[in-house]
């Protein structure tokens, strides 16, 4: 009950924030408000028992998305042109949709209803059988990495596609390097002493933490994507305080491209290995002599692949944006 009330309070704040984002005319303010929006969203996920999702939302919404929006904002006009008030047609469209959905909500199972159909059937099967079939504590990782590994393969390739798109449009990749390194402006905040020192202390810890999230994902919230996003966050911090030139000397553009492509490819290879060892596509049981060991091996490998791809792609995207003048 208490949790539900806290949830309702947070949701109300969320709605207020959403209205504020839409109303804000300065884009910078809107970005800041969407930072708050993402934090609130993550808190709601946490309250609703979705720890993995909350971690992802934090890494994506609070970290990567904010930085990307800021980087894009640097290249575009800072404020929205004055609008001509509410547009009638769209108000009608959205109002009708909302009413429809509120109408539908009365036939829906109430929050936490144990008799809701969604909790039976497939979901309870996962909870029941994961310990014997896959034997890892984090059921979310088990579903993500094994039962629905094909979706996760798709996810890795969605990320790769976004990276390809941004590099295609803004530069990056083998043929077309990030453009700004020749000019003298790629120094970041290296003149600011305090942030520089603090960042120097923090970065190793963030990297360590990212590795923990990567390889501890079977036991606690986390996994390849979250680890990749944290790793990227650390590298973004490095880039911000030390400048792009140094950052790209640490992980070269070529390495970034290799990571983007290699991680996704590794995932696919694990899938094909399933076929090669006599199983189905993305079947891990046959990867090792013991099915459980095979499952563990498969999940670790694909999580690693996802982590590498996400790191490579998000960093490439980040560099592609900030290298544009």
């Amino acid at each position, binding site marked *: 009950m208490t949790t539900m009330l806290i949830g309702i309070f947070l949701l109300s704040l969320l709605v207020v924030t959403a209205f504020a984002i839409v109303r804000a005319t300065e884009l910078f303010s809107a970005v800041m408000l969407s930072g708050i929006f993402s934090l609130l969203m993550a808190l709601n996920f946490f309250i609703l028992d979705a720890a993995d999702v909350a971690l992802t939302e934090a890494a994506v919404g609070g970290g990567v998305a904010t930085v990307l929006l800021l980087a894009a904002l640097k290249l575009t006009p800072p404020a929205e042109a004055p609008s001509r008030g509410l547009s009638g047609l769209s108000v009608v469209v959205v109002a009708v949709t909302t009413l429809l959905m509120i109408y539908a909500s009365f036939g829906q199972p109430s929050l936490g209803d144990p008799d809701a159909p969604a909790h039976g059937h497939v979901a309870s099967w996962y909870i029941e059988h994961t310990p014997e079939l896959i034997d890892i504590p984090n059921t979310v990782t088990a579903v993500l990495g094994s039962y629905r590994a094909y979706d996760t393969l798709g996810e890795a390739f969605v990320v790769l596609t976004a990276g390809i798109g941004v590099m295609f449009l803004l530069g990056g990749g083998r043929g077309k390097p990030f453009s700004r390194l020749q000019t003298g402006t790629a120094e970041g905040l290296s003149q600011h002493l305090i942030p520089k020192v603090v960042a120097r202390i923090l970065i190793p810890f963030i990297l360590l933490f990212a590795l923990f999230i990567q390889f501890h994902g079977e036991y606690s919230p986390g996994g390849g994507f979250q680890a990749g996003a944290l790793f990227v966050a650390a590298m973004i911090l490095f880039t911000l305080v030390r400048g792009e030139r140094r950052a790209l000397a640490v992980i070269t553009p070529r390495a970034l491209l290799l990571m983007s492509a290699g991680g996704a490819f590794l995932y696919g290879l694990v899938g094909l290995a399933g076929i090669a060892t006599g199983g*189905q596509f993305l079947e891990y049981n046959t990867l090792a002599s013991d099915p459980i060991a095979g499952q563990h091996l498969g999940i670790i490998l694909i999580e690693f692949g996802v982590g590498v791809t996400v790191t490579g792609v998000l960093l490439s995207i980040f560099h592609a944006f900030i290298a544009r003048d």
Partner: protein
Amino acid sequence: MNLAEHLPALQVALPLLTAPLVILLRAGFLAWFSAFLASLFSFALSVQLTIAVLQGGTLEYWIGGWEPPYGISMVVDGFSALVLLLITGASTLALAGGRLSLRRDIDNRRAPMFYGAWLIAVAGLCGIAVAGDAFNVFVFMEISSLATYILVAAGRDRRALSAVFKYIMIGTIGATFYLIGVGFIYMMTGTLNFADMAVRLEDDMDTRPIVIAAGFITIGLALKAAIFPLHIWLPRAYTYAPDAVTVFMAACSTKVALYILMRFNYEVFHGNLLGHSELFTAFVIPLALTGILVASAIAMFQGNLKKVLAFSSIAQIGYITLAAGLTSEAGLMAALLHMFNHALAKGGLFLCAMAFVFTAGSSALSQLQGIGRRMPWTMAAFVVAAMSLIGVPGTAGFISKWYLIVAVMEWNTWGPALVAAIVISSLMAVVYLGRFIELAYFGEPPAGNAGLLEVSIPLRCLIWATALLNIGFGLFPQLPLALATDGTARLLGGLY
């Protein structure tokens, strides 16, 4: 290890896994060549799959060895095979024919990224065609959409960018609506597998959440499929995309959204459809008819060849929805056949358009005056494909129009009126295509461009091969008929 039983997985995995290798390449030609090879092999896999389906019936594949609904399954029947053939065939055709055109549109340094995106688009579309799981469809829809955005954004005109932005927004709304619908169904059934959903929905078909879910899914997919009046992204995206990309997209991308829409409405919601088929028909048919007539009318007044063809595509999508909306066996047959035949005709037309643009440097009708005399071979192929689109007897288009008219006639008393509308819109097609053909043969070429200037012989062969396919499938329509019969039987399996 028997590779034949893994065909559905390989169909997706082959183009998908080639893509990361392609983006590592340095040179444009090599990237094109590997993309072409991967596309060709995918086509070969589709042919294999088609043969397997025709011989052994529906294939089912459990990914990861997990039994559905706990794991994700792939299902390949006649309908999927037909769509797979379209996707891989169109991709191979567009890559083969578009090599020079693409080399001009995409600068060499960015080419590996472009062809990587192309392969991912192919893989995404194939992934949808073989999917047996509702959420998996969402993932692969987003893969293919993201890749398609990149392909469209590669257009040389800056208007490609504004067109692609609109496309991204509408495409994402569509995908998200679809996701909401899937969420509602999941909430009420606890499953994501199509077949399992259908079984579990029997009981509470008429509950509010399910009706709303059907609405969201239909609108979302209609946005993706550019069904009138949700087509606004399509004309500009088709017009400003690189010409070869248009060939690929026009032949298959909207078809895949239609495919999944029909899957949903007939297989998952069949219980609902059974109770409300009149309501459904009464809702779909007027929309489809308006779409056909309005889009054809707009096409008659366009000043740009690619735009004419784009609006014609919207009208043709109207035919398919019209046929599917009849909720009869004949109607579905006609819809499936028309999907195939329209892809053939439109692919051919856009291929010719690509050749014209390559020579004339623009797709504006004013620049294409007299192009028929300068490029007689290509123009003749264009005329053949145009006849197929109009539905002249002896071409593939005739077969599906015939099935459509038969289906409409047996529908109810309004049949003749619908037939009249179909005939009128076909006449409109004669006008908008005839207008260009007349101008191409009899128009005065722009100053200084009078000489004979054909495209290369291999491209001419390819264009003519497509044109001949239009005639070939018109005279010997056994293959599409067999696939459509199988697909229809499965779609209707739950209905009657």
